[in-house]
């Protein structure tokens, strides 16, 4: 046991000191920082402070209403851009002449765009057109479309000589809310789209972290095994410790490194969320699951990669085996959308009991709604633990023989023989 610890300690300390690790460690905080900076900069920069849209109102009855809506919008402090609506008149020109003049002004960026409302729009026949050379600014057509529809409806109601109060009562929209239900009553998570989407997003981020962490560390295991094998260090080490102790020590050391990495990533992501005021949406109970699934999933992943590494003489050889292996681990990522859409469906349920997929699938399911019950989660953890133990056993047998094999890469039949022999 003491020797396992020695291997673990060396593996951890040497890896944690490596430049690659420090880089990976800094990667996540850097990415988050960059994202915050870029998003704040871009949101502020990309939208102009003020934008002018010309309105060619064929009906002659809508401009005032639109302007009123724009004024209401502009009054909001966070409004960006503020809209300036300019009324375009025919002034003796034909409709087409007027429109092509507006198009010219829009092309020369004198105005952002123009809205041409056909004269018979109130009769329900003509339509409206928004044209701009910058359609990236989606707020313009979105807001104008909404305002126009409201204005048209109001004008039509007025035509029917409806009492304005009655009209207002008819037009009043229904307050429509969304709420994510907790497991028990009184455990609600708040209302609004943010309250629903943010925890889902946070959980998905955790799944991605889990996947990245496991693959990154698994890859590190593979590299380190191949490095030790090709530089013949294994022989010196194996003269002191058993192959099993060596493999276990290595995996534990790498696992601690992975935990360090994951903890730093999660902490920096949480820190960023707290700073931006989203901390309340991070489902903290998920962190417990994250830890359990990371530990088990990582052990499984690492044992697999160690076994594969021990069979290869060089990284190049390993790459051939890495293809199918990555595919195996990536299956849940490909199926993430159907799983997220139906977290208690048959596909999701079956996949959460396949040890290689359990961590990712179960984490996604726990993030979604309806959430699987705790006993189902615990059962999947038990299956995963059993699967991990089995994979460890097989990997240990492959490792023991493979690590000393040089020359021709092993054939599958040979590998099965290694597993069977005592």
């Amino acid at each position, binding site marked *: 046991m003491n020797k396992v610890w020695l291997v673990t300690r060396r593996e951890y300390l*040497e890896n944690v000191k490596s430049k690659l690790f420090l880089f990976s460690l800094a990667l996540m905080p850097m990415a988050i920082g960059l994202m915050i900076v870029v998003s704040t900069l871009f949101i502020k920069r990309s939208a102009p402070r003020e934008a002018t849209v010309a309105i060619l109102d064929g009906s002659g009855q809508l401009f005032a209403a639109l302007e009123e809506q724009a004024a209401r919008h502009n009054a909001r402090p966070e409004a960006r851009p503020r809209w300036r609506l300019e009324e375009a008149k025919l002034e003796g020109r034909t409709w087409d002449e007027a429109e092509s003049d507006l198009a010219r002004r829009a092309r020369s960026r004198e105005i952002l765009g123009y809205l041409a409302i056909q004269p018979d729009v109130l009769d329900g026949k003509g339509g409206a057109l928004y044209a701009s050379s910058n359609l990236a600014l989606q707020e313009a057509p979105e807001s104008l479309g909404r305002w126009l529809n409201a204005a048209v409806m109001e004008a039509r109601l007025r035509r029917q000589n409806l009492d304005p109060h009655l009209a207002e009562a008819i037009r009043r929209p229904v307050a429509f809310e969304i709420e994510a239900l907790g497991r028990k009553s009184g455990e609600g998570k708040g209302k609004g789209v943010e309250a629903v989407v943010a925890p889902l997003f946070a959980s998905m981020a955790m799944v991605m972290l889990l996947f990245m962490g496991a693959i990154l560390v698994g890859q590190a295991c593979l590299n380190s095994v191949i490095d030790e094998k090709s*530089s*013949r260090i294994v*022989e010196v080490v*194996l*003269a*002191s*410790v058993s192959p099993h102790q060596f493999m276990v020590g290595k995996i534990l050391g790498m696992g601690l490194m992975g935990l360090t990495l994951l903890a730093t990533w999660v902490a920096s992501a949480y820190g960023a969320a707290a700073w931006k005021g989203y901390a309340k949406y991070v489902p903290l109970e998920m962190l417990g699951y994250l830890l359990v699934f990371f530990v088990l999933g990582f052990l499984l992943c690492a044992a697999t990669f160690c076994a594969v590494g021990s069979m290869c003489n060089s990284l190049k050889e390993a790459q051939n085996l890495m293809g199918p292996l990555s595919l195996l681990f990536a299956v849940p990522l490909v199926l993430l959308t159907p799983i997220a859409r139906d977290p208690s469906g048959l596909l999701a349920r079956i996949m959460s009991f396949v040890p290689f997929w359990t961590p990712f699938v179960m984490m996604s399911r726990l993030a979604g709604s309806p959430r699987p019950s705790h006993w189902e989660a615990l059962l999947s953890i038990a299956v995963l633990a059993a699967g991990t133990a089995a994979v460890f056993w097989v990997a240990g047998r492959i490792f023991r023989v493979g690590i000393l094999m040089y020359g021709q890469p092993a054939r599958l039949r040979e590998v099965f023989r290694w597993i069977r022999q005592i």
Partner: protein
Amino acid sequence: MAEASTNRDALRLEGVTKRFGAKVAVDGLSFRVPRGSVFGFIGPNGAGKTTTIRMALDILRPDEGQIAILGQPLSARLKDRIGYMPEERGLYKKMRVGDTLRYFGALKGASPRALAGCIPRWLERFDMRDWEGRRIEELSKGMQQKVQFVACVVHEPDLLILDEAFAGLDPINTAAVKDALLDLKREGRTIVFSTHVMEMAEKLCDEILMIDRGRKALEGPLEAILAQHGENIAVLEYEGDGSVIRAIPGVESVNDYGNYVEVKMADGADPQALLRALIDQARIRRFETRRSSLTEIFLRLAGRGGDE
């Protein structure tokens, strides 16, 4: 009595066989290494030396036969009393010299205290005091070899197994390692020394075991082997007609090297007779007799004849 003799052996193999698939790497091999001896384990490449050593270290398991270390069957605890330097050297390139030595020492169960006393002494001995904090990758190949050697002795093993210990060492370091080995021998430690370079085996070893194709080819004290398998050889340098040498009675074969000839005498023939017969026919500048070297015996027994 049998118990006592077993205990006197640092390493004992009995009927050990190891197969890799259809290939038999070691075939029913038995031998004993007496404690305190320098034991030469020789044989051509591919003879099964490394496989045998790996079995002695419990890195590989024999298919048949028994192995005892220091009088006891192999166990994890006994492994700590062996020091091993494999033929293919390997150190962690990014690790520092001091950390490397402490790590390998600790893996062998040495206490940090003992290592703190031992490591500086060994570094001193090999003129590497200043290198303790350097990374392995900064060291020259010869330096790395020395670190590797120190790594396998820092835990003060009772049995030292060295596979091609001198490969890649320059003459100065070869001498340093050789002296260190002799000191270890004087301390009563057993050294198993595997090599295909016979000159070194001839200089250092008390006992020799030669294997070929997984089987024992030759075994015994070095002196006895040289006496038994050595041949009568005369080395001659002369001016004049040498063609007559072949005709002289007792001459078995002649090997002409240009500057001198080596004359192999038949068993029991007296080289003095050769000198006497030749003295009238040619001007002799040098005449000496010698026994065959271990290399020659080795080549003859391994059936590869001629030159190397």
